[in-house]
């Protein structure tokens, strides 16, 4: 009997391609063509990070891995980091992970019906849900990091010397303007 896993291996390229295109639709029209075509990973880092995340997740899913801890989703680190600072809502930022379900169903519909692999598909899909939840944690950590940077980072960097200088020049006068 054919297994879902085998078909996923055979159709890897097409499914990931479709998945990527769906994610690219989250960016404005004028940006999409570039995102999809420039292959150099340093000239097109958004594409590279998306594909790293997608390839990583896909291959681990196919290998039958389960995702219980955030460490098991290390391959999503960069792409989540990127999306946490882009013009996306939290749902949009994480949402691209679910697009794999669309892409897989579109590519596998015939086989699933013929081979009766519905159960396997559901297991596959619930693993995707799992990853999405972990990704949400990662996303929140990135956001916290951003707030943290905003609140303390730069001030800490200047404080050592500023403290010294503040003793000298009028601290009170400057305090309200402090950035």
């Amino acid at each position, binding site marked *: 009997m054919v297994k879902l896993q085998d078909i996923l291996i055979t159709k890897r390229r097409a499914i990931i391609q479709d998945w990527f295109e769906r994610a690219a639709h989250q960016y*404005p029209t004028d940006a999409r063509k570039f995102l999809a075509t420039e292959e150099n990973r340093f*000239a097109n880092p958004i594409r590279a990070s998306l594909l790293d995340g997608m390839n990583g997740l896909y291959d681990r899913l196919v290998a039958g891995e389960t995702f219980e801890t955030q460490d098991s989703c290390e391959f999503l680190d*960069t792409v989540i980091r*990127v999306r946490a600072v882009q013009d996306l809502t939290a749902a949009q930022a994480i949402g691209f992970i679910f*697009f794999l379900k669309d892409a897989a169903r579109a590519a596998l519909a015939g086989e699933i019906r013929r081979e009766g692999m519905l159960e396997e598909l559901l297991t596959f899909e619930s693993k995707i849900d799992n990853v999405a939840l972990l990704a949400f944690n990662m996303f929140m950590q990135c956001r916290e990091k951003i707030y943290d940077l905003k609140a303390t980072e730069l001030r800490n960097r200047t404080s050592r010397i500023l403290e010294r200088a503040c003793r000298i020049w009028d601290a009170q006068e400057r305090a309200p303007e402090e950035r």
Partner: protein
Amino acid sequence: MSLEGLPKPENLHIDFEAPQTDWMETPTTFRSGTFSFPAAPKNIKYMGMANPREWSPTEEDWKLPDNWRQIILDGLKERLEKFRSFRLFMDICVRCGACADKCHFFLGGGDPKNMPVLRAELLRSVYRKDYTLAGKILGRMVGARDLDLKVLKEWFYYFYQCTECRRCSLYCPYGIDTAEITMIGRELLNLVGLNINWVQEPVANCFRTGNHLGIPPHGLIDMWEFCVDDIENVTGIRVDLPVNRKGAEILMVTPSGDYFADPGTYTFMGYLMLFHELGLDYTWSTYASEGGNFGLFTSHETIKRLNAKIYAEAKRLGVKWILGGECGHMWRVIHQYMDTMNGPADFLEVPKSPFTGTVFENARSSKMVHITEFTSDLIKHGKLNLDPSRNDKVIATYHDSCNTARAAGLLDEPRYVIKAVCNNFYEMPENTIREETFCCGGGAGLGNDENIEMRMRGGFPRANAVNYVRDEHGVNRLLCMCAIDRATLTALMHYWAPDVEVGGIHELVANALIMKGEDERKTDLRGEPLPGMEDMEEEEDV
């Protein structure tokens, strides 16, 4: 159960698509974290500039003068007549798109209006409407539009979302420099009081006291002396600190970022140690105490006003020539504006190294030499006693600052110095360094806290390349020679690559520099134990 019976995943998709409108139709939204706060009225007033008031970009009413439109159109006309390059840039773009995918803000964020060609179109569309026949008659069909409030707000958002890094201009077959278009765009915005505090406050401070933080002379000397103390702790040597000394051979000017913030301070200590060891006849100045010039991010007039102090101070002190520290945009100003705006400095001599006799022909006119030119020449002539193994814990890569690389052509000198003082050096991929270097994402006044998300987006292409050398070679230090970089890259690395530290070049020079009569060095300038000295530290602690 059947496949058809299952809920479809796409049912989840609420509002997943990006807006599919043409750029001109897509409205500008001021999302928190992606724009800079307006200038405080007192900082505008201090410079005698237009329309000081409290206002906020997220509010409907920007409190503009009633005739703001006329002011801008008149300003545009004036600048088209004054700057031939600007007129040319307005006319000759063929919209070939070669620059479109070269901007780090576009590459990190995906917003099409961050494509340089569209950034320029923001202004060009208005120009077209008023200055071209086709635009007057055909309007939108030929990409022309009226200057209305919507357009003005778009200008504010996107002209303060360009770091004037000039990466795009490198790829334009016509040499169109979008950074210059941004500069004019900001000049026009300034005419009606649309500016940002992170630029305007340093400008006002600098105009008042000579440096960005507004530190008065006695405060400066105090800060510098603290660095002298720190050096003594590490080396046992109390280095000279010549300040405002008339008759010195050389005036040293560096960005204030070198002495008010770590890790710039370590670079500042590096200069002090190097000059002391050489016995250089030089002086610092409490008046020309800032190499940086945020006028570059304001207007041509402001560049000139802030830059004037450097030659004036050189003249007052009677030095022969000027040496400049590790700064980025400072070098764009020195290289491209200082001589024509405030020169000729014919009271100075052509710079000549007192130790090697090398004449810096490239500075024949400006009379100002970059510190890595000076130091690389010393190293080349074997004038420094160096032990690079003291930096063995550092696995370095080098970030070319936009301005030193693309505007001043300083590509090989910094690398030559780094390789002489550090045994582990790895380049980032070639399409991300030298002329093609990616911006830190926080230049041109955008390196403020409130703009943090935009900075992280814009800095992503740079961080992406850093991550690559970190993973491939274990890189743990990102070197740069720019004070803005040292601040912005530090935050950038905290977000993207927390295990990579940021630092300047002369910090490593000073670590490696064997000084006459020094104590055995146990730590580097950061107070961290040198390789092989870890145990000694512990013993001392006991």
